[in-house]
């Protein structure tokens, strides 16, 4: 399952400046795991020390918030796009 993960602007510095990466994953949790294995510096920005997604990190699969799907267990299929968005409205300029 090839899934595209969009890396938000403020985190690109920890991902070799990449704006996105392709991973092979059956769930959102797997995809984020692969993302942080690939770019280790991203881990502390997305997860707490005990491995939970930080409270202000929102994850979307094709514009659907995973909170309202099956959270990290949300299944992914070929061609899906995962976005990582901080829960602030004004955003980063």
């Amino acid at each position, binding site marked *: 399952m090839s899934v595209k993960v*969009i890396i*938000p*602007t*403020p*985190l690109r*510095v920890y991902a070799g400046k990449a704006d996105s990466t392709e991973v092979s994953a059956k769930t959102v949790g797997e995809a984020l795991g692969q993302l942080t294995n690939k770019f280790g510096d991203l881990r502390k*920005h*997305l997860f*707490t020390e005990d491995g939970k997604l*930080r*409270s*202000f*990190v*929102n994850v*979307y699969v094709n*514009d659907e918030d995973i*909170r309202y799907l099956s959270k990290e267990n949300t299944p992914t299929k070929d061609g899906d*796009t995962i*976005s990582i*968005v*901080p*829960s*602030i*409205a*004004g*955003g*980063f*300029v």
Partner: protein
Amino acid sequence: MFATKQMASSTGTPHYSSARAGESILARIGNTPLLRLASIGREFEHVEICGKAEWFNPGGSVKDRPALGMVDAGLKSGALIPGKTIIDATSGNTGIAYAMIGAALGYPVTLCLPNSASEERKRILTAYGATLEITPGDEATDGAIRRVREMVAADPAKYFYPDQYSNPANWQSHYYGTANEIWEQTAGRVTHFVTGLGTSGTFMGVTRRLKELNPGIRCISLQPDAPFHGLEGWKHMATALVPAIYDETLADENIEVGTEAAYRMVKVAAREEGLLLSPSAAAALLGCLHVAKLIPADEHALIVTVFADSAAKYLSERFWDEE
């Protein structure tokens, strides 16, 4: 213009306690209460901590001040004339302020925002009659800003684009308003001013004015401790695009605050003070406590901060349900 009158009066003594019937909602922008903390920080007996309760602004946040200031400056300069539409890229408090002010003054407002903006935000904005231009969620705010620039470039005569990051009327609204209110409400006793940096308008405007009134006042800016954070309106200057109005040499000190610590303080302040603060307001309070800790016991201090908004628009955040 009504807005001008309000700006001028905010440099004098607030007199809204005897408000006349028939005033505009815009007359309620500014002159917010300066609340004193009773419980949090009481271990520092020599220090008083006070916060401007900016949710008393009619749009619910501190952003009413710069939004009104920029609209007013546009009206004065002729950049905003009847027939034009106010446009910007924000789903945050500035967008809400534009939507309210546009509605009150009879100017249409268009806001570009990413699809990922919360449903609550979209509803507030549409309730005020703003037109929403939804951009792809995966492009976040970058996509929304690109859209605004495209729309303005395609039809410059149609739009008034205030651009809060580079508009001096942003910080001037705090120079003439917020700073003088703090000076009057503390009877000139303020010793420290602490606030978060976003557009940096609050910090720039208040600091410039307070330093004129008393150069001994220490002004401390706050930032998130990482580029990716949950403190709405705040910027991690080292990694963000730096706003044109920001002058980093103005701060006596800069302190970093973590998002999770701010979330914890939101809960503490609600329960111990009866103050339902937003995460960024709670982060400002953490900054005050950090400053208080370093003040020698034989020195009396009055620390003032700005509580940018209340928790009302953040009630669906996940942190309420987490430890």
